[in-house]
């Protein structure tokens, strides 16, 4: 669809930034269009838990004034974005904390503001303290969005913002990205500051962008990546020029496929996922990539090692909240406390040793390949009525596609690669070397330039 024919709320960030830069689109006009879209459909999607309409319009007017004076800050200037509630926003701290205060703007939020983005509000997530209505999947509102960045997935997919921030401890950016047919990037651990992100698990939490196209995710990632002295795990590795670097093709790129691990997960994976991911890998091959089968033996233990670290660190991080959580919290949060309590120090240390072994095996694999390609979900988004309150926890204790890359901290990208028979999105997952987000963005971008999955919009 030509840009001129698209509703404003469905412009990609890349399209909108060009129009804003050329002054053929005003940030105020764009923000109003997104607010109208929210008004029209969020009663069905439940993506926002805190809509900041007045502030957003104020910020959009400020952006318009600044740009009209010739002070265009960059691609995020005047772009309406929203954030998962787990991140602190000035005046709206993360609500999953009970006993600690927010810090004003989280660093990722501050950086988006500095890039000129317009903050639309805060988005729902799984296991909220007061359990508001959970977001619905714009492709079919009888289905879930996937979590825990539930609102972030629904909002981007449904045109309720142009980009969102999510958080991923065991797949929480990639799962809703896959289920909603959008692009999600979990960068390398340490690439994006966790300051102001209410912790689930200090050593596994990753903050990252969710958008409708790979070049959009590159623009957003550019704005939030970089060292932050307020986060002791933040890396000072140089930040690449992501948006420029992705435009190279994939000719000669070596893509590893961990077939033994996919086989391990296959009994719990819907055949349509395996089929569409194979087709996506074949598409990369037809575009010039070389496909190699790789083996990572310890990957089969990585999901449970991730869960052990997750629950143990969750218990430590939320100990002071435990009396409240056990009385009032959502079932998933209560269960995590019990599991964290039952995890002994030897279990935690063994999980860390498995983490170390996995990293070594993957380092060896990455000496021969540029990235990995594998599925990003076990199946299409399930029906809301079929999902139990702690189903996610069952996913965490059997080999699956997300946890291993939180455990190892590697960058991963979720890219839509087709639809199930009942028109629900399916995604490919690309995994890169530490701090080499460029390669997976490049592969994802090239794939999107040659396919149309990301250009389809939900019926809502």
């Amino acid at each position: 669809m030509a840009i001129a024919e698209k509703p404003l709320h469905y412009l990609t960030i890349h399209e909108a930034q060009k129009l804003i830069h050329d002054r053929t689109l005003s940030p105020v006009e764009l923000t109003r269009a997104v607010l109208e879209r929210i008004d029209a459909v969020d009663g069905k999607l439940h993506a926002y838990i805190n809509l900041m309409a007045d502030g957003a319009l104020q910020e959009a007017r400020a952006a318009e004034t600044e740009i009209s004076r010739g002070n265009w800050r960059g691609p995020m200037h005047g772009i309406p974005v929203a954030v998962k509630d787990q991140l602190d926003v000035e005046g709206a701290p993360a609500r999953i904390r009970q006993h600690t205060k927010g810090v004003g703007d989280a660093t990722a939020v501050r950086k988006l503001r500095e890039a000129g983005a317009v903050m639309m509000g805060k988005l729902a997530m799984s296991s909220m303290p007061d359990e508001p209505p959970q977001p619905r999947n714009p492709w079919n509102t009888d289905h879930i969005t996937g979590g825990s960045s539930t609102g972030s997935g629904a909002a981007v997919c449904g045109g309720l913002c142009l980009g969102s921030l999510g958080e991923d401890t065991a797949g929480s950016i990639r799962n809703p990205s896959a289920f909603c047919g959008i692009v999600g990037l979990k960068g390398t651990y340490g690439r994006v500051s966790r300051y102001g992100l209410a912790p689930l698990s200090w050593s596994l939490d990753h903050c990252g962008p969710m958008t409708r196209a790979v070049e959009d995710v590159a623009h957003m990632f550019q704005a939030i990546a970089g060292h932050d002295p307020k986060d002791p795990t933040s890396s000072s590795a140089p930040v690449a020029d992501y948006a420029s670097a992705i435009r190279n093709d994939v000719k000669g790129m070596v893509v590893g496929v961990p077939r033994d691990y996919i086989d391990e997960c296959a009994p719990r994976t819907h055949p349509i996922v395996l089929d569409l991911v194979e087709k996506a890998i074949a598409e990369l091959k037809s575009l010039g990539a070389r496909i190699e089968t790789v083996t990572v033996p310890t990957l089969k233990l990585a999901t449970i090692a991730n869960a052990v670290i997750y629950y143990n660190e969750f218990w430590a991080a939320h100990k002071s909240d435990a009396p409240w959580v056990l009385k009032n919290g959502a079932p998933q949060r209560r269960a995590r406390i019990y599991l964290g309590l039952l995890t002994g120090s030897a279990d935690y240390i063994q999980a860390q040793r498995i983490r170390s072994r996995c990293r070594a095996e993957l380092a060896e694999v990455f000496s021969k390949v540029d990235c990995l390609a594998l599925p990003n979900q076990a199946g299409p988004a399930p029906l809301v009525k079929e999902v139990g309150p702690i189903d996610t926890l069952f996913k965490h204790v059997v080999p699956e596609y997300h946890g291993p890359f939180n455990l190892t901290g590697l960058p991963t990208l979720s890219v839509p690669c087709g639809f199930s028979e009942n028109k629900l999105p399916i995604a490919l997952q690309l995994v890169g070397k530490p701090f080499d987000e460029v390669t997976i963005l490049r592969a994802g971008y090239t794939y999107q330039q040659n396919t149309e999955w990301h250009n389809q919009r939900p019926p809502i």
Partner: protein
Amino acid sequence: MDKLTENALKALLAREGLEPKEGDLEQFAEIIGLYMGNLKTLHSVDLGPEELGPVFRPEWTGK
């Protein structure tokens, strides 16, 4: 969840001055049982001299 695990969980909760929400131990019995089984699997692998994943960084100054 086996009786030993249930008793251990109750003791751990009591040590922290906590009580399980009514019905939780029954509701979460399956996931807890599965998780405890997985902990055993985790220890069944011989990692030889493998050390800890996270590395202490002397330059870490905190926030």
